[in-house]
């Protein structure tokens, strides 16, 4: 952003990772682009400008451009963040952009988070295992507002994949459910509508793909754009799993 004493806008230098797996001639490399900063510029605006004026082949993903759809995770100077929500004013003049690690690369800054999350949902059966079928004529099952609020808190994850990309374990162990997966499990665990027992949960949540794969690097919680209390979630899952373990001998 321009400051008052110096009306000239900053010149931003973007160092962007480039690679198009569909092009046999393409090799991973870094390319540099320069543009002028504008007030309230986000990385979404900056990247669009680069694509529209400097290099039309640049691949990246944005959809909602308002930090709710989770499309636009990328490594910004080494840290996973939502591109649409990152103001260039918060960054130095040199901005390094890389695709999120831990996911399959589609090209340049675009990665395949959709497949990762669908697989995660299938593995953890991330849907309500209801006790009774739906009765269209019946009143809704009651629930205290406090429980509803607690579930909503867990439901706020936007599946941007920042937590996964920031986690050392998830980067080397593709099976690891990581922040988003564990958070999703906890969300269903605390839902009174879900009929799964602690013993059912044990198999999903325990073990090295589950919460015991986490070594406490805590990057996930630091980068989560929704500021989900991921560390509290893991501790809750650990304690609850141990409780199950002891109770069942």
């Amino acid at each position, binding site marked *: 952003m321009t400051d008052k004493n110096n009306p000239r806008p900053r010149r931003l230098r973007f160092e962007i990772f480039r690679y*198009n*797996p*569909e*092009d046999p001639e393409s090799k991973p490399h870094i390319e540099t682009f320069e543009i002028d900063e504008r007030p*309230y510029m*986000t990385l979404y605006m900056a990247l669009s400008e680069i*694509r*529209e004026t400097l*290099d*039309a*082949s*640049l*691949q990246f*993903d*944005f*959809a*909602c*451009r*308002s*930090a*709710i*759809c*989770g499309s636009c995770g990328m490594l910004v100077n080494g840290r996973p963040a939502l591109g649409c*929500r990152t*103001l260039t004013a918060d960054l130095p003049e040199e901005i390094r952009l890389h695709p999120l690690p831990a996911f399959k690369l*589609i*090209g340049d800054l*675009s990665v*395949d988070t*959709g497949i990762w*999350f*669908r697989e995660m*949902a*299938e593995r953890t059966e*991330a*849907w*309500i295992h*209801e006790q009774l079928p*739906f009765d269209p004529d*019946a*009143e*809704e*099952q*009651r*629930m*205290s*507002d406090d*429980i*509803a*609020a607690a*579930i*909503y808190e867990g*439901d*706020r994850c*936007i*599946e941007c994949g920042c937590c996964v990309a920031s986690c050392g374990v998830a980067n080397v162990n593709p099976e690891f459910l990581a922040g988003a997966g564990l958070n999703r499990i906890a969300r*269903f665990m605390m*839902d009174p*509508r*879900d009929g799964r027992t602690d013993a059912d949960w044990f198999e999903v949540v325990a073990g090295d793909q589950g919460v015991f794969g986490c070594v406490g690097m805590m990057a996930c919680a630091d980068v989560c754009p929704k500021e989900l209390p991921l560390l509290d979630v893991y501790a809750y899952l650990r304690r609850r799993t141990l409780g199950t373990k002891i109770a069942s001998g």
Partner: protein
Amino acid sequence: MTPQVITTDVLVIGGGLAGERCAMEAAAAGQEAVILSLVPPRRSHSCAAQGGMQAALGNCVKAEGDSPQVHFLDTVRGSDWGADQEVANIFAEEAPIAVRELAHFGVPWTRVRGGTNIYFIKGEFVDIEEPLENDGLITHRDFGGTAKWRACYAAAGTGHAALYAVDSEVVRLGITVRDRAEAVSLIHDGTRCHGVVARCLRTGTYFAVMAKATVIATGGYGRIYGGYTTNATINYGTGAALALNTGVVPLGNMEAVQFHPTALSPSGILITEGCRGDGGYLLDKNLHRFMVDAEPEKQELASRDVVSRHMMQCIQDGNGVDSPNGRHLWLDIRHLGEEHLTTKLLEVFDICRDFAGINPAHDLIPVRPTQHYSMGGVRVNKDGEAYGMAGLYAVGEAACWDMHGFNRLGGNSLAETLVAGRVVGARVAEYASGATLHANTGLAFDALNAEEQRTQSLLSREGSSRSVYEIRDSLGEIMIGKVGIFRNGADLSSAVDELKVLIFECDKAVLKQKGPGANPELAFALRLPGMLRLALTVAMGALARTESRGAHFRVDYPLRNDQDWLSRTLVRWQQNAGEPTLSYERVGLMDLPPGHRGYGSDERIEMEASLEEYNEGVLDSQSAEGRLESSEAMGSKLRRYSGGAA
């Protein structure tokens, strides 16, 4: 590389709430379903809906006495009598079921807290005693244009919670989802639809999907307004364009474009109506609540078209706040308190913090009216079947099922996606189970070839031209400047001319990038003609409609004209024609005769004919336009829901 042809029973284009709910219904009935989506389904724009979903459960004190009847009345009044009342009736009756079903799928609806609750209503804090026996039921918040508190909500992430719950069910049902796949044309023989040609956005290759039934659920077309929209960057309206390109299927009421009063200025990111529902004010540059003067009864909570117009008027009268990015007004929610803002309106709090750098508990929010919702879309009958083409359906914002008429009420859209998803999904399943698949691969290959050729000719253009992005920017400027909130004949006809020039320019546009793979520029260049065509249908429809109704406001014809315009615009684009053709049908069978909405102006030109006379001609006028007969099964269902609304 040989192109791929996939076959299935039901093909749904679009993984938003409407598409997914529809696919679920088909899959649950035993049909194989495939969903195509530009993005992983959970990233569809439905996730951005914040405020709530209308359903007349009547659970909290301020909702007492609510019923589907009252909801129906609000919806029709909101539509400025542009809605199909039969559809609005089905909708209002089914909405409570849809909400409860979502609860069943896991949506954490905010619940009634029995005991004393403090609400903020019309400028003051009010203590209300919620009866203990209602504790734990789904609660409501106030929204614009409704007689009762009716919007069910999950904090400020209603669409997100709903979409995740529905997508969970899609995963559970094992429905195939091809994300990053874009439908680019329909495979049809002029009377029947057989599927689509799609482009893979990972690799850039084309494939065809052949299906017994094809459902368009591609959402709205807000992006024809360039950056002046609250819609996601993926809301190009391609679904409507696909239907338009058949030359047979008409689009309905394209000129009915909603502007939301409170989008963050300048980014256009939506600040939910829930803010005003929960007690927020609109202020002008003198921090005066101008809505109290303009609408003493509903104040900030009149319907969106009315509030947006008052805001624009206020700005035009010189009471807007100057800023480097144009004039805006203020939304004030400071008095609701940080506690409320970081729980029930958390997403709003975050948006203000992240995109405007302000804390809404201490600062005013700069807002201005911005394009928000497309009432128009693929014209369908009560079952969701497209006019003029068997086996083609449309649902959600992409459709003109037409319960919104000329103005959608806040919260009615989420409800529509789910109700219509259920209703149309059931019909699709029924149709698909009766139909046989005409795996006419010849047709598929022809369509595939046509697309490949289109791409090749696009890539082989040489020379210099404006870039596709520049053309897009011009499109946005024309639409917001001349087809915006206040419209007039002169501007509209110049918009029509300019759009035609753009279409011509687009046909010549040269790409900078011809490389292999997804090629984002190519992908955009393939969509742009569709966007321009839609824009032209909007502008032409608006030019032809010489009255003001709902969101369509003509400064040169400021009155609603029920004598001449109690009709729905239909627009077709004949193959190889230079411009679309307009025609009209009656809006539908009416229970509630046209009258005053209860807010906005009471002046209008009355219809001379009686309601009976009007209703008499409805079905004929619609059949003449290609409406397919509703199915027997739906018919009986409809009978169950229709009648006795007024």
